[in-house]
């Protein structure tokens, strides 16, 4: 039956999906291209978390009561730096080419990430740090901490995008790069910053997922698909829509998996996406706004 346990599990999963989808949608808005490596960056964030947690446990004497939360800023920072490198490789050389070229370059980066993980960590699944030690907050402590961490970060992102000059410049650059430049915004720098932000969010999703769902080099495709679907359902390019889409997917998946099976949950999800695209080719909540090309 569907109990509160299931719903909390769905919330934790949804929180992680939402972060991955947010990064995904930020890049879509900034460069008009799908980041096919978004899922692989989730995976990479998981490995960063694994490494950071093991370093922490080896080099500190104090028993850490919330290892996941402690290394959270570290993961964000490391992944932001990786995101900058990513944009330098996959976006900057191609910025005068059609979005399809960037789409494919992100596929290439995804392959490199996956194979690097395979080479360095091996194919066996590894467990990341727990968010808070079990003794601290009961059985659901870890999942509740996941949800809380995601909520805080999403709220912070909302504040950043809507409440700061930097955030407004980021949005302006995504909405009309030429006009953004015409009011003095350095658009290329804003796009690089978007990549850093998007990859940091993916990394955080990886950290959140790494304990309960483990980390494997091949995880990327599934996470990318979830982000892709969340953004499609939520309306292409809509930030709030991406969060809603991610939550919907997580609830659907968890509930069907609990009632029937994991496989059916996945299969139904894909069939559902096809059905949605069939009935509404512009996405579920997508509405055509008066946006100029």
């Amino acid at each position, binding site marked *: 039956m569907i109990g509160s346990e299931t719903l909390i599990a769905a919330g934790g999963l949804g929180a992680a999906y939402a972060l991955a989808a947010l990064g995904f949608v930020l890049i879509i808005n900034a460069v008009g291209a799908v980041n096919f490596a978004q899922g692989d960056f989730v995976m990479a964030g998981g490995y960063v978390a694994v490494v950071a947690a093991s370093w922490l446990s080896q080099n500190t004497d104090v028993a850490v009561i919330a290892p996941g939360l402690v290394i959270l800023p570290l993961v964000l920072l490391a992944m932001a730096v990786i995101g900058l490198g990513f944009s330098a490789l996959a976006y900057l050389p191609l910025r005068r080419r059609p979005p399809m070229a960037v789409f494919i370059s992100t596929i290439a980066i995804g392959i490199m990430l996956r194979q690097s993980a395979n080479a360095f960590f091996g194919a066996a699944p590894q467990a990341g740090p727990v968010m808070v030690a079990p003794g601290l907050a009961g059985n659901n402590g870890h999942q509740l901490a996941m949800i809380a961490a995601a909520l805080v970060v999403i709220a912070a992102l909302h504040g950043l995008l*809507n409440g700061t*000059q930097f955030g*407004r*410049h980021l*949005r*302006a650059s995504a*909405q*009309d790069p*030429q*006009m*953004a*430049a*015409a*009011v*003095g*915004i*350095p*658009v290329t720098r804003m796009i690089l910053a978007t990549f850093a932000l998007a990859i940091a969010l993916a990394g955080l999703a990886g950290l959140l997922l790494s304990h309960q769902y483990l980390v494997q080099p091949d995880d990327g495709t599934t996470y990318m698909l979830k982000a892709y679907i969340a953004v499609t359902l939520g309306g292409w390019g809509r930030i709030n829509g991406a969060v809603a889409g991610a939550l919907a997917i997580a609830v659907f998946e968890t509930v069907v998996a609990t009632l029937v099976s994991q496989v059916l949950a996945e299969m139904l999800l894909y069939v559902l996406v096809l059905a949605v695209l069939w009935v509404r080719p512009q996405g579920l909540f997508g509405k055509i*706004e*008066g*946006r*100029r090309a």
Partner: protein
Amino acid sequence: MSALLRLENLAVSRNGTPQVHDLDLAIPAGRIDAIVGANGAGKSELLGALMGFDTVISGRILFAGKDISHLKTHQRARLGMGFCPEGRRLFPAMTVAETLATASRGGSQHRRRQQAEILALFPALANRLNAHAWHLSGGEQQMLAIGRALATQPTLLILDEPSLGLAPKVMHEIATGLQQLRDAGTSILIAEQNAHFALSLADHAWLMAAGKLVLNAPADGLIDHPEMKTLMLGG
């Protein structure tokens, strides 16, 4: 004499097609200058070259004595060129207040002061501060587009077809606003197809046809110039 904006032998192309040929022009500070010509005369491409959108094939653009031909768009904006494009091109998912804040440089106090100044110039925007760009009427959109350019504190405000699609009454409000700006010390350059509007607003006019300037004279009385009619009818 040092002109605020000086174009020397400027040739411009858009999408590989040359649109402006060997053009020389000098504009002093403190004036409203209008470039008037029929559709396809090359006005839009000329302004595009000023902002770095269209390709300069040859020649130079001097702004306040500095060669800006090779600067990026955002650098030109920071030197004091404010741009209000044809079709307005507002940030679609931003409110009026957000749009003005985005274009503004400086702290929050400075932003508030600037917003107040712009609202004083275009009072119609005051009630719409939290409305999104696409909910505004055509006139309000145009005012916001001008306001966005003003928020960058330009020494030269450049407007491409500001009258397009507007009712005459709204045009009048905009013309009044622009004249106030000029009186307050902002130089203005507009490109217009609506000769009546442009000439009643400007101090000086440059007539353009087939990518070249054919005449420049004080705007007063120019509407009755014999060349005016043939020119505007696409001559």
